[in-house]
């Protein structure tokens, strides 16, 4: 594995600046060792997908990046994860501030039981990022536009967000996540509850968002990983098995486990 790990850093550097660097990350849920010594670098302004069978640790690892695991009792994270070379697990780091910089979109669209407008305005308001109605209006509009939802909702901003279709709700969640102007966007299977059309719209959106954000996406669809990401990391039984340019991972992976997984030989 060590030899592979060395190769990985070479491949990663080819993509330019690293936004996130994880080094020897271990995650324990009580006695269960969920993530085993994962080291990976995530390039700035690109999409990195995490793939692997259920229970391989890809979502757990994703949740380490904005300290969502802090909210789980008995969960312990060792090793270091840096965002712009700052340790995000440092005692001085406020997880709430961190999560404003590292936004997250979940598998199931989870809009607040509030209006479409308030769903987007909520984060910027509590972080004190907007003052007055005009500024808030502008941010809500620009966030909804970037999420590709503006045209569909501009005439009913005060209706509840939960009244939208699944795909629209997910785009609302993306608008909500980007409203706080994060640098990193984490997406945990953002399309698994959506139909193919809504999925295509989200994928198109991911492609546009990567100009401004560093995106990490967990997906069970290998075709989706192949379509949307520039780099792919394959997890298996809590370990990072292989990581590299997406095209290489899907046409000529180096590791047999990766090959077996992506060709449908292990599940």
């Amino acid at each position, binding site marked *: 594995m060590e030899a592979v790990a060395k190769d990985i850093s070479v491949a990663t550097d080819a993509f330019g600046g690293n936004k996130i660097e994880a080094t020897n990350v271990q995650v324990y849920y009580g006695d269960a060792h969920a993530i085993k010594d994962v080291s990976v670098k995530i390039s700035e302004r690109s999409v990195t997908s995490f793939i692997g069978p259920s229970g391989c640790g890809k979502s757990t690892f994703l949740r380490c990046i904005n300290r969502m695991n802090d909210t789980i009792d008995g969960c312990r994270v060792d090793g270091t994860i840096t965002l712009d070379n700052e340790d995000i697990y440092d005692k001085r780091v406020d997880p709430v501030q961190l999560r404003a910089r590292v936004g997250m979109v979940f598998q199931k669209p989870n809009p607040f039981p509030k209006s479409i407008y308030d769903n987007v305005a909520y984060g910027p308001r509590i972080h004190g990022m907007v003052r007055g109605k005009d500024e808030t209006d502008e941010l809500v509009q620009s966030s909804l536009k970037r999420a590709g939802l503006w045209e569909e909702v501009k005439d009913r901003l005060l209706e509840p967000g939960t009244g939208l279709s699944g795909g629209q709700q997910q785009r609302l969640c993306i608008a909500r996540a980007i409203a706080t102007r994060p640098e990193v966007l984490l997406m945990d299977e953002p399309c698994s509850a959506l139909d193919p059309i809504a999925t295509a719209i989200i994928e198109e959106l991911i492609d546009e968002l990567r100009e401004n954000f560093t995106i990490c996406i967990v997906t069970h669809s*290998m075709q989706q990983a192949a379509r949307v990401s520039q780099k792919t990391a394959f997890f298996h039984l809590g370990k990072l098995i292989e990581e590299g340019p997406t095209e290489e991972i899907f046409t000529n992976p180096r590791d047999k486990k990766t*090959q077996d997984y992506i060709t*449908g030989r292990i599940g």
Partner: protein
Amino acid sequence: MSNTPSDHIVSSYDDEIMQLAASIAEMGGAVETAISDAVDALLKVDHATAREILAADAKIDDMQRDVDDMAVSMIARRQPMAADLRMIIASIHVANDLERVGDMAKTICRRTLQLDGARLSPKFYNGLRHMTDLTLRQLKDAIDVYTSRDITNAIAVCERDAEIDALYVSLFRELLTYMMEDPRNITQCTHLLLAGKSLERAGDHATNIVEAAYYLKTGKNLAVLLDEQRSKG
């Protein structure tokens, strides 16, 4: 890195991969026979056999279409990845090359039909016969490399193509000499020369097949690798 087909979670996927491989092997056999029979018919100026081979080429074309259909259907339904994807892409390439070799056999048969009933002088066709032996060996080895997925001999087989090319050049000179000796030889020698050219091209397709096998097995391009080796000296 490549897997045996027999371990997909979905076993019908394995069946399809095996069927695709079997189709290529069958097509390879048909093409080898076509070339061998076509040259025999040419040297004997056997019009009846030449016509049979011409008619049988439609079957080889059908086989290629079947491989293409199977490959397209697998890509659409299975979304193949990595070694499986390379295997399917390689099958499309190899079927195309084999179909082209079938066309070479057809071209040779057309030459045969152009010749009148007179027997050819063995003096004229010894070179061509030797070239046929080499081309057939090359085709057989290429198909073996592909079907066995064993690329140990891949580079050796590719480099042997130079022997066929050299043989074609010497055949050209030899036949030219006969034509200069006696202009009445021109018709026969020209047809033999063009048949030689067809064999030379069949050899090139054999090289392509080995390259496809190499790609299937390693994901790398053998032609690029050989060029790099040559430029390094």
